[in-house]
């Protein structure tokens, strides 16, 4: 690198002053960034000629203060839980003391609802302390002019705004204002009580600690100070904006400190240099006379535009090809504005590059976070009595961690799906570990932890924590980042456990857990300082690179626009010297320009795609570069172009029949195959499928591709149908004469009797729950379905009452027939008739259809129409009933009448289930039998005709719910 890096300048100077005598351990180097250490140490060793040295201590300002305080610092996200809890307690106390102020005086929101506001409040208190401001003054209702005048540091304009803001007539306040002021008025007391409690417990947040030390220092005599700060020198390097407390600290330690500032003349008059300009005068730089005009020197700057954030990563490889990377010097960095795309960045790197990563990454993205969420959802939402709801259990069983700990997981899923069980009681025959190895910790875990239903929040958190512990012990995790994640998760749960007992609802734990997982960060250590550096924007602090690729240089990302994290209005913040968006802008601007000042090859990429987070706009700094930088004439612009997708071709798939297929079909239905004690026959539904779509017939009945039912607890049309059928079967279980007296047992005054209700409940258990379930355990959907089916049963019985008496000839009655198609092809066809009864001297073939009621147009008008492939929607039902009727007509002397009973429509007297041909109800199917069979045979002959391929259906409307639509890849959307 041609330009000496800032840290090298610092290291060189310090080595001159201390390193030569091996006295670096007598100094403390205080920097805003942790990573600085790596680089400075490396430079020290280069300077010492590789002689071992005692290292200096490195710290940030807060840790320096912690060292000097009796209070313990709570500074990371995990420890923050404890702080917010304390804050909540204080807030609650104060709220309860000031009940009368609020709308609903007795209710203080529960902790989990407070949490988010607590974060904001804590941030505000931290700011107040860092800037040594009186909380009492800030949180005062400053409508009172006199009080305002006493604040003589306010400008007239500020006073005017404050007056206007607070001086609104109380009576006319809108609800919004009322809400604001109610809270505002108790915050000062909350602050006081909160801090009092913290001190009692020896706890502190960052601002509190710095304030304590800064305030103590200003009143201390020199000797006390030197006792407290015994080191030879305090080295402050690379700072930018200072809080008031930090400023006081600098001031008090000035005579035993060295200051190193990193700035460039180019931006000293803009927001980026606003503070450095001031500080570098007040705390003169320990190094003098080096070049401060690096930014304006020749640089190559390229702006890259991409369609979406991830697409930017496509530029990494081409970029690396344009620069020269010095592996030892770590002079090249890919800087991520948004850590989210890190995984893609890593996978888009050329091979053998050994990148070095220093970035904070949210715990939420780790695998363990996924499991924790799944487990919590299971415990919070997926528990019904003593059983788990399969919908919530499934993701847990599928999770790779669970599967590692519980080897039966997949087997259990299989069993559950096969037996269609929806609610699973743990430690019965499922969810139990084989009893072979009782001593193993994992075994104990399984019995006591995994399949335990937790009762309260405390148990829930404990359960999660134990889980993490066991995973760690089982050593299933290999990935270093995941190992860190596991540790952080464990620590987080330890913390959460202490609070959990105060949280009442399990739902709240789910909420808190997600919030915490999102805010807890895992850090990549990024050692040693070699190779291609991949880092977050804030990790670049103080470090210089020759080549920089900055990804996601979008406005809103760089700089971040993060409003709304304070409850104190901006004008008040400004009036009291608390940081506002301006300070934030300034710091980020500095960070950006500093990163560029020594660099030689700079590539800045941004995306224009619409996205909720980024606005698809280039960063303001890029605009600044384009409009006013000395490099504006030489900036290169590149647009990334990726290949547009090739659309999946719309296949018109056709399957040519071959002998093998036909043979298989032939023997499948020739009567030799017995399945479930029944003869294998070509069912009406199979044949209907053939008519509707020969290709899907091929998939299902020739290839035998069967799509398994997805087991979930949601009821569907199929379960509705089977429960209804079962109920009717139970009612008419004993074949015989059905007369009004018989029916009176089941239906009275047009409503079903308790006996019927009981049978229906039984049917629900047998066909759906598969485990004894009483009516009050039903959820809403089950309740509604119950009502619906009850209604269908009622309608059917009502209808039967009009018809009674009649004789039930059979329920679920098999009905088969061997059909000769050609000389060498004979197949069995037929199926099960729902109900066969005898009425008025006719035999009725009845099939129940629980779906929606067809209109006249849904059926075929004439027999041949039934076999056309553009037939109407419900013609398949007709076919089925006609087929049974044809078969029965052969053997029954009585006239056979085909009927389709739609319980949904059956409640009126006029309703007739009898099917029609040419708009006339069929009174004897014999009339149509021959024509029907002839057409049927013809169509079957087509099925076995090797010349005619299995082709897909023409009507796209059928495809929407087709199991095989993805194979055909038909475009049926919209």
């Amino acid at each position, binding site marked *: 690198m041609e330009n000496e890096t800032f840290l090298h300048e610092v290291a060189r100077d310090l080595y001159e002053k201390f390193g030569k005598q*091996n006295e670096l*351990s007598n100094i403390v180097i205080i920097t805003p960034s942790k990573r600085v250490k790596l680089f400075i140490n490396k430079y020290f060793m280069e300077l010492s000629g590789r002689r*071992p040295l*005692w290292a200096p201590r490195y710290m940030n300002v807060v840790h320096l203060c912690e060292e000097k305080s009796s209070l313990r*610092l709570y500074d990371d996200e*995990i*420890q923050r839980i404890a702080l917010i809890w304390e804050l909540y307690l204080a807030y609650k106390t104060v709220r309860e003391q000031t009940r009368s102020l609020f709308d609903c005086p007795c209710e203080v929101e529960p902790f989990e*609802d407070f949490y988010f*506001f607590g*974060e904001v409040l804590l941030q505000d208190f931290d700011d107040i302390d860092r800037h040594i401001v009186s909380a009492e003054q800030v949180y005062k209702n400053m409508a009172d002019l006199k009080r305002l005048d006493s604040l003589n540091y306010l400008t007239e304009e500020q006073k005017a*705004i404050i007056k206007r*803001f607070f001086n609104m007539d109380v009576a006319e306040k*809108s*609800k*919004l204002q009322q*809400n*604001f002021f109610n809270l505002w008025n108790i915050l000062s007391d909350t602050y006081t009580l909160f801090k009092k409690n913290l001190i009692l417990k020896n706890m502190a947040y960052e601002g509190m600690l710095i304030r304590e030390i800064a305030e103590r220092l200003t009143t201390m005599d020199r000797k006390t100070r030197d006792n407290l700060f015994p080191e030879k020198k305090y080295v402050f390097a690379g700072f930018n904006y200072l809080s008031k407390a930090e400023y006081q600290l600098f001031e008090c330690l000035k005579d035993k400190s060295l200051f190193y500032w990193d700035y460039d003349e180019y931006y000293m008059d803009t927001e980026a240099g606003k503070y450095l300009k001031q500080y570098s005068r007040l705390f003169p730089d320990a190094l003098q006379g080096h070049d401060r005009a690096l930014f304006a020197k020749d640089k190559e700057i390229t702006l890259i535009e991409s369609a979406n954030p991830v697409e930017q990563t*496509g530029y990494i490889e081409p970029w690396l090809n344009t620069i020269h990377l010095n592996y030892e010097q770590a002079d090249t960095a890919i800087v991520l504005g948004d850590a*989210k795309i890190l*995984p*893609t960045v*890593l996978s*888009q790197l050329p091979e053998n590059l050994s990148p070095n990563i220093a970035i904070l990454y949210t715990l939420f*993205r780790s695998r363990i*976070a*996924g499991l924790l969420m799944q487990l919590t959802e299971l415990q919070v939402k997926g528990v019904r009595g003593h059983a788990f709801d399969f919908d919530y259990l499934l993701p847990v069983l599928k999770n790779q961690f669970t*599967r590692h700990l519980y080897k039966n997981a997949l087997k259990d899923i299989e069993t559950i799906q096969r037996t269609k069980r929806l609610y699973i009681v743990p430690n019965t025959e499922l969810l139990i570990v084989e009893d072979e190895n009782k001593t193993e910790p994992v075994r104990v875990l399984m019995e006591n932890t995994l399949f335990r239903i937790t009762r309260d929040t405390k148990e829930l958190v404990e359960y999660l924590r134990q889980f993490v512990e066991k995973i760690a012990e089982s050593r299933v995790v290999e990935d270093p980042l995941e*190992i860190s994640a*596991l*540790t952080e998760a*464990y620590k987080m749960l330890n913390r959460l456990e202490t609070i959990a007992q105060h949280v009442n609802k399990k*739902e709240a734990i789910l909420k808190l857990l997600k919030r915490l997982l999102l805010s807890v960060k895992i850090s*990549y250590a990024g050692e*040693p300082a070699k190779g291609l550096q991949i880092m977050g924007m804030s990790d670049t602090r103080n470090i210089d690179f020759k080549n920089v690729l900055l990804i996601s240089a979008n406005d809103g990302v760089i700089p971040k626009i993060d409003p709304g994290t304070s409850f104190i209005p901006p004008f008040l913040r400004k009036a009291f010297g608390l940081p506002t*968006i*301006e300070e934030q*802008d300034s710091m980020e601007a500095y960070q950006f320009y500093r990163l560029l000042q020594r660099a030689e090859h700079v590539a800045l990429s941004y995306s224009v795609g619409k996205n909720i987070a980024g*606005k698809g706009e280039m960063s303001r700094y890029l605009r600044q570069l384009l409009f006013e930088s000395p490099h504006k004439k030489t900036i290169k*612009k*590149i*647009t990334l172009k*990726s290949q547009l*997708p*090739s*659309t*999946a071709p719309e296949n018109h*798939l056709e399957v*040519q029949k071959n002998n093998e297929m036909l043979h298989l079909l032939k023997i499948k239905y020739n009567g030799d195959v017995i399945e479930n004690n029944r003869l294998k026959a070509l069912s009406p539904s199979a044949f209907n499928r053939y008519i509707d779509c020969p290709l899907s017939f091929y998939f299902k009945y020739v*290839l*035998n*591709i069967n799509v398994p039912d997805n087991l979930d607890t949601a009821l569907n049309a199929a379960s509705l149908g089977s429960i209804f059928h079962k109920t009717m079967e139970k009612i008419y279980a004993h074949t015989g004469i059905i007369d009004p007296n018989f029916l009176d047992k089941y239906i009275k005054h047009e409503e079903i009797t308790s006996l019927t209700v009981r049978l229906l409940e039984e049917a629900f258990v047998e066909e759906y729950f598969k485990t004894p379930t009483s009516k*009050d355990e039903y*959820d*809403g959907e089950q309740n*509604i379905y119950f009502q619906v089916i009850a209604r269908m049963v009622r309608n059917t019985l009502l209808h039967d009452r009009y018809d009674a008496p009649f004789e039930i000839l059979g329920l679920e009655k098999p009905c088969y027939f061997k059909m000769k198609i050609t000389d060498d092809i004979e197949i069995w066809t037929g199926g099960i008739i729902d109900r066969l009864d005898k009425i008025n001297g006719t035999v009725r073939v009845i099939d129940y259809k629980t779906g929606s*009621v067809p209109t006249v147009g849904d059926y075929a008008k004439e027999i041949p129409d039934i076999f056309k492939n553009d037939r109407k929607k419900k013609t398949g039902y007709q076919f089925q009933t006609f087929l049974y009727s044809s078969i029965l007509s052969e053997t029954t002397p009585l006239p056979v009448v085909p009927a389709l009973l739609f319980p*949904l429509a059956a409640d009126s007297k006029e309703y007739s289930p009898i099917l029609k041909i040419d708009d006339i109800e069929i009174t004897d199917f014999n009339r149509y039998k021959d024509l029907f069979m002839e057409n049927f045979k013809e169509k079957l002959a087509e099925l076995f005709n090797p010349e005619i391929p299995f082709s897909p259906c023409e009507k796209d409307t059928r495809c929407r719910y087709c199991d095989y639509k993805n*194979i055909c890849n038909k*475009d049926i*959307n919209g």
Partner: protein
Amino acid sequence: MIQSNFLVYRASAGSGKTYTLAQQYIKQLLIHNPRTAYRHILAVTFTNDAAGEMKNRILDYLHELADDNDADFLENLRKELPDFMKNNVEEIQQRARVALQSILHDYSNFHVTTIDSFFQTIARDLAKELGIGSRFDIEINTELPIKDAVKEVIENATTQNEVLGKLTRFVEHKLEDDKWSIERDLQSFSRFIFNEIFQKNEDALMQQFQEEPEKIRETIKICKQFIVEYETRMQHFANCFFEKRLPENDFYYKGKGVPGYFKKIKNKEYEAPNTYVLKVLSGDAGNAGDMECIELLQAAENYRTGDRLLKYNTSKLFLKFIYQLELLKDISDKISEQNAEQNRFILSHTNQLLSGLIGDEDTSFVYEKIGAQIRSVIIDEFQDTSELQWRNFKVLISEILATNGFGMLVGDVKQSIYRWRNGNWKILNDIDQELKEQVRCLSLQTNYRSAEQVIDFNNQLFKQAAANLQNNESDEHNPFRKAYQDVVQQSTKKAEGFVSVDFAEIVKVDNTIVQSYEESVLEKVADKIKLLLDRGVKQGDICILCRANKQIRLIAHDLPGIFARRFPDCQETIRIISEDAYRLGSSRSLNVLVSALRLIHESRNPVPAAQLLLQWKDENINELSLEKIAQMTAEIQTQQTLPLYDLIETLCRKFCPGSGADVLAFMDKLTDYLSRNVPDLGKFLDYWDERLSIETLPLPVKGQREHILAMSIHKSKGLQFHTVIVPFVDWAMAAKSTPSKPNVVWCESMSKEPPFQFPLLPIEYSSLMENSYFSKEYETETHNLQMDNLNVLYVALTRAEKNLLVLTKQKPKNSKTSNIQDFIISYIGDKPYEIGKIEPHDEQQVEEICTIDISFHPRKPDTTVFPSTEAQIFARGDNEDKIQKVKTGNIIHLILENITHIENEENIENAVKQAIEKLIIRGELSEAEKTQYLEIVKTQIANSRKWDWFSNKYNIHNETAILMDDGRENRPDRVLVDGDGNVTVIDYKTGETKPGHIKQVENYMALLSQMQKYRTIKGYVWYLSENQIIEIEADHGK
């Protein structure tokens, strides 16, 4: 009187709206303090694109002004400037420079944004006061929240709560309809939760439900009774008639006359009688038929009509949606509950929330709270503003008006096509009435976009169309005419242009359809394209605009084939791109990728495996077999233990290496998904099915497009194209109401006849409504629908720069419904129309953009990442040791590390306690383990008799690092230096004794000796769990 500074611009299509906006904005900067003026101007528009465009234009023009590069802009601006500045070009430049610089360096205060994100900022800031969490995810989609809420409302309905009752009533009502799907129907109706009229009346409605819980029930009962009564009576008339069994021929006009009337009644259709029946009734029909029948007819007609009919229809309409309405509050509450639970904030709620809480005097409070001092406001696309938005803005605007501050509302009523999204064009239309002379209304008259003939055609067509819009009010107050009063535009006469209108019809031979209407249209379109290509238009110049997505799909799929068939000799093949083709779900690569994922998720499902075989392995479908499917399944299953992101990348490597925009977009969505959701494959697949697969890649609308573009009219708003073809101009004014898309008019009903007095009722827009208590609302809605449709047509026909081609359809004879083509036919007649000549492709140079082709090549990440030592200890332990032991050892290690000094033996406990406290804070130790470790460590230190290692007599390097030659630090656990320069190094160890431990201490000793600073060097290994101390001999350290 002072002229108002508040401008209302009516800007017709192509009239240079953005230019004017930028100009006015810049003017404000220049005439005020250019250093700060921008801070006080809020400029909002509706889409991100438009906001971005506005921002860019303002900054670009400022830049040009500052550098004196755009004479035209300067000239036009000068006309607007006050005299003192007008002629001082240098001053203008100087001010522009200052303004630009100030904005760029204080960009957070440059308020050019979308209306949504502006209100979001406010909502975010007022989160606590509004009662929402302060950190939330914005949800722009409303369907998913509704779906989840409906699901949960249903799931939670138990016999103990009221909801079950409501749901059961709803289901029972649906059962009467014979068709039902609780979830789907409730979902589609629940969309209205986000309808502003509903939102506005929600509280009143719910209050009524609460105060008079029986009112709905009773009204339902009354309606049902009345319907039965009415139908029975009418049925009775019909029955009486048909019992007579009179031959139809006996009647005037036979079956079409009186018998037809009764047939309808039998079918429960109670429409007004036709002319034949009317004639019979009035006695004008000569041979009317049987006298008794005529009396019957009179009786029936007497009963049918009048208030009874109105009441009957109203009852029917009331019952249609009342059950859903009852449930709406429950669903809406559930959505709020889930919002809180998921930290989600639904964008569509913003306006309501704010308007509910903002009082009339609140602006200063709200704006000052967020720290913006807004003194001027610019609203673009004002015709799309909703009432609530306007309400929220109005507080601010009144303040501006009161101080004669600057304001600007820009819009075009004619381009208002978002009524269904709460847009209310009447606000703009009536703004002059509302704000009177407080505002200055201006109109941009010149169309800079289109060629002369196109402008001319539209001028005439829409002028006449507006005149034809029916409305009872006099011309003066006719809002539609007012909306279209500025439709006539001037032309810049840059080019002549071309317009044609043609017809396409169903082709029938002997009453059988030989060519469908769609086929005819496509053929015509193909012919037009051929014509255009022959006249020098390029494919990239053409855009085809359709109203419905399925038409776009039809064009994208079938047009190329039809073109090739019709013009086999044509050199060119037609290439069409549409948003649909850019759907992620249409991508071949992604389909393969997703089927692999699906296969992993549902290993028992053979379909994805078959799909992979066909689409990835290019297997012939005839060769498919269960064995191959099993093989494929096995091949994929090996991946299944990978975490979701790695899994998908791994699959990308396998199935779609080096792919382009589609896979990159997919990865982007995945990244976004994973930042908010738990990585669960099943849920992600659902997310793909429901959301991702229908998302689209951005279409290349300008630049180097080489394809014909097919897109929807709605999406084309704000865009322009060289040549525009608009086929399928044939749509009906009102879409048919279906359960999945209910066509609802929300009617305020408090003043209606009893029992229909409700604050608000959802009424289905249907012919029943015409003869009900809601007839006036019916009329209004009919007019609004006409306006909506005319506006859509206006947007479609004003997109063309040079050539405009329209395909429409003749109206069927006796058609009662009104259709969009009525407007066109009434202007051009029913013959094809053509004027001007086709303008060829513009050879203008497009700005050269430097591009780099990239693709997605995921590799297996190869990183040197180390977890922190602490993490290693936690998760790995020492491989040869028992887990618990290691953990104990490590904790002890950590405790010792945190002890610097122990003053004397009595003080051991205290020192250990303090150190343990630190670990607890960091979460490394739980409260419960505290005492256990206190005892262990205390005993260890005491027993080791080495507490003096912690005494004050040493200078202690506790975990101080020694820098080594590779720059890495070496960290002996404890180094003690006494006053004489003797040094002791101690390392803590856990687990078994190992030679390596000694080696390590020897190593430390060597480093210390290389420092050449110390007199003697001693070394120890302290085995913590066994509490054993081994001294290392000094000479080893040399």
